[in-house]
């Protein structure tokens, strides 16, 4: 006989499948078997039906599709015999669930079986109903189930009780019908009926307030007595589990008492005695006893207040905590977490034990314990707790370090009593687990460091030491590199040394060494490398003696394959080699970052920070933005903020770093007046080192609203892309810096004088010491082009030297600046500097000219910087 014909027995099929050596072989057997079953189904052969379905269920368990057998289940359920019905109902529960429409067809069969004379068949029907009934079936069959709650056989009563639970979960409205029959079940002696009845009672109380009220009044005493009887019952072999009679019933009873006692003082009061008895008398050397104690503690915690019982409960948890069994400790931690709300003082007493659990090898325990410790932290214990956790960080499993680090950082940020402690703790965490620290955490640390001016030296020396010990902690490297760049001289001079510090001798070249090691380390990623380059640039200005060496280090990255590094290296190299005069101001220390704004933004945009943390990480605090989409978009966002509204909702750290001194100030009403003190993102970018005093606050508005809003981005783009085809920033004279920085830009073509149309002259810019007037002319035949004769006059009593005029325009304009007539401007209006500008307006007739200017010069050897916007161009240019 062919072993794969439909005549194979179930056992043989299972053997055949198990004998398969490969998955392909197994698939083959299953395919043949399924084909045979299908044939048998289409022949509608009743003899093999239940055998076929049994096979299908096995095939289903292996993960093969068996939907074609669904109708067979219904046929089997409808057949008269018990064996067929048994397999039919089993198939129904395995192959179908409450969502299938087919289930509708079975409702009638179930109804008939619920009324069957054979109680075993009634049992099958109840079981199926309890496991898969839908809301519709629940409504149709509830009366039958309700009736079966009083069936003579206890096996049916208990099944009907659990079935009722399912019914009232599906249709809570039906709850009231069950209240009376359940009250009768609670008086039963049969444990199976009792335990299901108690469970149903608890579910009814949750489903309907009336039921809760009813059971509270009528059944509390009865249930307390049942619990008393069970707890005091003599040895009962049938229900005995390690010396305790039916712990499951204990637990169900305690649970239902909790439901009844919650929010009702009288009811709670009536169960105090039995709870106290269970809590004190239950053996706690076996799991079953502990399970009861655990449930008892939960009930004590949840019913109305009784101080004495609470102490008892917390003590039980304390005992649990010192248990050697991990399971027991786990549930103790779990419960203590809930107990904090009730009695946090009592939980605090177990702090030491809980801390020990954080160090457990079992991840489930550690996780619970850490969460609990986090809830236990307050102002008084934050220091010892943090110390313990930080110490544990050194030895903890790598997979736990992430969680632990996050919690420590969060504790430190939330409870830090003083800045030095905050900095200390964060630096320790960075040294131990720097690679697990999230971006916003180390960003926040930098903000705190910049704000703690008396701790700059301390922080940088700490970081210097730490960096030599642990190079592979990425975020430590970043913070250290940033601080060494900013506060390098404090490292060398031991500025602001605190009493607690060990003396540290660092030479200038040591400081450069440590940066060189960092940038060359294999674990140093792009962001850190880029930060290193900036720090090196800053050091080159702080330590002129190392300048040559720094230039060599930077030079090594001029050929980097990473565009970002290559570009930085080239720019910085050129700054060091050719622009000594502006280097010191470029490498000026960052202005203090505003803490409140940062934390406000962080709080307001936690998801944003998380989701764009990748983007944020490539932004470097020193004002250089990578050409990624996200960062640029952010810059754009900020600078497009035409409205005078505060920009603090932006939510990116970058804004802090770049535009920290652009804090919201209302827009000056007369925008036509050039804003003498105005500064904007663009200029900020250009003048990294401008002392904050000069960058007085101004709205984050770049150009007037009638100009092309994309201009700032564009200018930025060009700034950072040396190969940009046309430059819009030109500068005066050969002594200018910008043009050289942007090596490779086309030099200005010779100027052609034209006899253009004359326009009236305007005073484009006027400050207390300086007047700039523009005379306009047009070339015939080229209406887009405007020639401007700029003339600078000095109103003050002092001579201006090294006079440089710079201008920037939006994208729709093209600007060419010719060399100025000189770089010295005599005092008191005795002479002037003239300079010609040529502007091509691609939106001629639609948009007016607009320009940002910046003038720098020296008076008595002091640098002066003036900036402004020119908007009062004649409209038709």
């Amino acid at each position, binding site marked *: 006989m062919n072993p794969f014909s439909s005549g194979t027995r179930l*056992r043989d099929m*299972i053997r055949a499948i*198990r004998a398969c050596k490969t998955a392909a072989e197994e698939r083959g057997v299953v395919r043949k078997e399924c084909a045979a079953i299908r044939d048998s189904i289409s022949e509608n052969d009743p003899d093999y039906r239940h055998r076929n379905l049994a096979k299908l*269920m*096995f095939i289903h*368990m292996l*993960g093969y599709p068996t939907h074609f057998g669904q109708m067979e289940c219904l046929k089997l359920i409808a057949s008269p015999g*018990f*064996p067929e019905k*048994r*397999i039919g109902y*089993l198939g129904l*529960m*395995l192959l179908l*669930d*409450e969502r299938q429409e087919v289930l509708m067809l079975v409702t009638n069969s179930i109804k008939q079986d619920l009324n069957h004379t*054979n109680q*075993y068949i009634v049992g099958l029907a109840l*079981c199926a109903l*309890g*496991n898969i009934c839908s809301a519709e079936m629940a409504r149709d069959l509830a009366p039958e189930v309700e009736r079966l709650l009083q069936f003579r056989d206890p*096996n049916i009563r*208990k099944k009907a009780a*659990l*079935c009722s*639970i*399912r019914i009232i979960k599906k249709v809570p409205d039906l709850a009231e019908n069950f209240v009376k029959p359940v009250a009768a079940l609670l008086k039963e002696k049969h*444990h*199976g009926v009792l*335990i*299901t009845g108690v469970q149903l009672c608890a579910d009814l109380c949750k489903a309907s307030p009336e039921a809760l009220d009813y059971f509270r009044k009528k059944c509390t005493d009865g249930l307390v007595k049942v619990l008393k009887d069970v707890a005091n019952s003599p040895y009962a072999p*049938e*229900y005995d*589990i390690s010396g305790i009679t*039916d*712990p*499951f*019933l204990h*637990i*169900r009873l305690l649970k239902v008492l909790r439901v009844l006692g919650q929010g009702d003082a009288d009811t709670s009061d009536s169960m105090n005695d039995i709870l106290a008895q269970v809590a004190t008398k239950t053996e706690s050397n076996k*799991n*079953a006893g*502990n*399970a009861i104690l*655990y*449930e008892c503690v*939960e009930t004590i915690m949840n019913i109305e207040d009784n101080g004495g019982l609470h102490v008892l409960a917390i003590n039980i948890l304390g005992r649990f905590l010192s248990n050697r069994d*991990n*399971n*027991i*400790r*786990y*549930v103790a931690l*779990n419960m203590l977490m809930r107990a904090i709300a009730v009695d946090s003082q009592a939980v605090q007493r177990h702090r030491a034990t809980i801390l020990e659990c954080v160090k457990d*090898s*079992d*991840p*489930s*325990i550690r*996780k619970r314990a850490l969460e609990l410790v986090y809830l236990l932290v307050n102002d008084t214990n934050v220091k010892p707790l943090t110390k313990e956790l930080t110490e544990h960080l050194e030895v903890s499993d790598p997979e736990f370090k992430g969680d632990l680090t996050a919690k420590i950082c969060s504790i430190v940020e939330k409870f830090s009593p003083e800045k030095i402690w905050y900095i200390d703790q964060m630096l320790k965490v960075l040294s131990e687990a720097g690679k697990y620290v999230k971006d916003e955490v180390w960003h926040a640390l930098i903000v705190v460091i910049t704000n703690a001016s008396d701790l700059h030296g301390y922080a940088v020396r700490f970081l210097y030491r730490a960096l030599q010990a642990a190079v592979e902690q990425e975020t430590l490297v970043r913070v250290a590199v940033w601080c060494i760049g900013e506060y390098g001289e404090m490292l060398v001079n031991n500025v602001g040394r605190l009493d607690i510090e060990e003396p540290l001798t660092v030479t200038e070249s040591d400081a450069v060494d440590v940066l060189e090691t960092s940038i060359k380390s294999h674990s140093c990623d792009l962001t850190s490398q880029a930060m290193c380059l900036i720090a090196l640039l800053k050091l080159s200005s702080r330590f002129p003696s190392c300048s040559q060496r720094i230039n060599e280090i930077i030079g090594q990255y001029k050929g980097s394959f990473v565009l970002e590094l290559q570009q930085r290296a080239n720019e910085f190299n050129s700054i060091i080699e050719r622009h000594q005069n502006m280097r010191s101001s470029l490498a000026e220390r960052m202005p203090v970052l505003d803490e409140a704004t940062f934390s406000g933004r962080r709080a307001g945009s936690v998801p944003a920070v998380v989701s764009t943390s990748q983007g944020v990480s490539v932004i470097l605090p020193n004002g250089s933005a990578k050409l990624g989409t996200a960062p640029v978009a952010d810059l754009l966002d900020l600078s497009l903020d035409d409205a005078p509204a505060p920009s603090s909702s932006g939510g990116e750290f970058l804004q802090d770093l770049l535009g920290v001194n652009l804090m919201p100030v209302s827009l000056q009403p007369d925008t036509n007046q050039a804003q003498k003190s105005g500064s904007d993102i663009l200029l900020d970018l250009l003048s990294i080192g401008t002392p904050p005093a000069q960058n007085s606050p101004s709205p984050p508005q770049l150009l007037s609203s009638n100009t092309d809003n994309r201009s700032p981005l564009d200018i930025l783009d060009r700034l950072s892309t040396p190969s940009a085809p046309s430059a819009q920033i030109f500068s005066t004279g050969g002594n200018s810096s910008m043009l050289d920085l942007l090596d490779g830009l086309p030099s200005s073509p010779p100027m052609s004088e034209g006899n253009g149309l004359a326009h009236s002259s305007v005073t484009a810019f006027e400050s207390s010491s300086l007047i700039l007037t523009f005379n306009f002319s047009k070339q015939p035949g080229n209406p887009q082009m405007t020639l401007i004769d700029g003339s600078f006059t000095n109103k003050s009593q002092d001579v201006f030297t090294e006079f440089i005029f710079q201008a920037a325009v939006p994208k729709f304009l093209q600007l060419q600046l010719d060399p100025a007539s000189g770089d010295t401007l005599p005092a008191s209006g005795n002479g002037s500097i003239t300079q010609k500008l040529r502007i091509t307006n691609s939106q001629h007739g639609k948009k007016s000219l607009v320009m940002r200017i910046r003038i720098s010069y020296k008076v008595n050897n002091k640098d002066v910087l003036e900036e402004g916007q020119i908007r009062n161009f004649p409209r038709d240019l």
Partner: protein
Amino acid sequence: MIRFILLQNRQGKTRLAKYYIPLEESEKHKVEYEVHRLVVNRDPKFTNFVEFRTHKVIYRRYAGLFFSLCVDITDNELAYLESIHLFVEILDHFFSNVCELDLVFNFHKVYLILDEFILAGELQETSKRAIIERMGELEKQE
């Protein structure tokens, strides 16, 4: 409430899967795979409880078989652990020294026992003897 019960061997083959909540077939396979991954490599000294999505899995290992119950987060873990043991004792008694193969060849009987032990995600009977007797009666009906 118990949301599902899984019996799996070390290789991850499911020997019994009972769901008391409706799940898509594909979702069931995913759940079985994930639960197996969670429990199979845990140190025996560790707790028998693992968090699983928004619920928790209480599991216990008997030789090469893992018995896993997925229950609500507020449920009494220790009690469910005890009920796994009770279930295993019942199986052991019924098959007299149960082994994995008994469960494979008599899977439909295992389901029948389970249906006498747990119904609608709740415990139905706590007496081993009662269940064994009931099984005897049911077998007589065949």
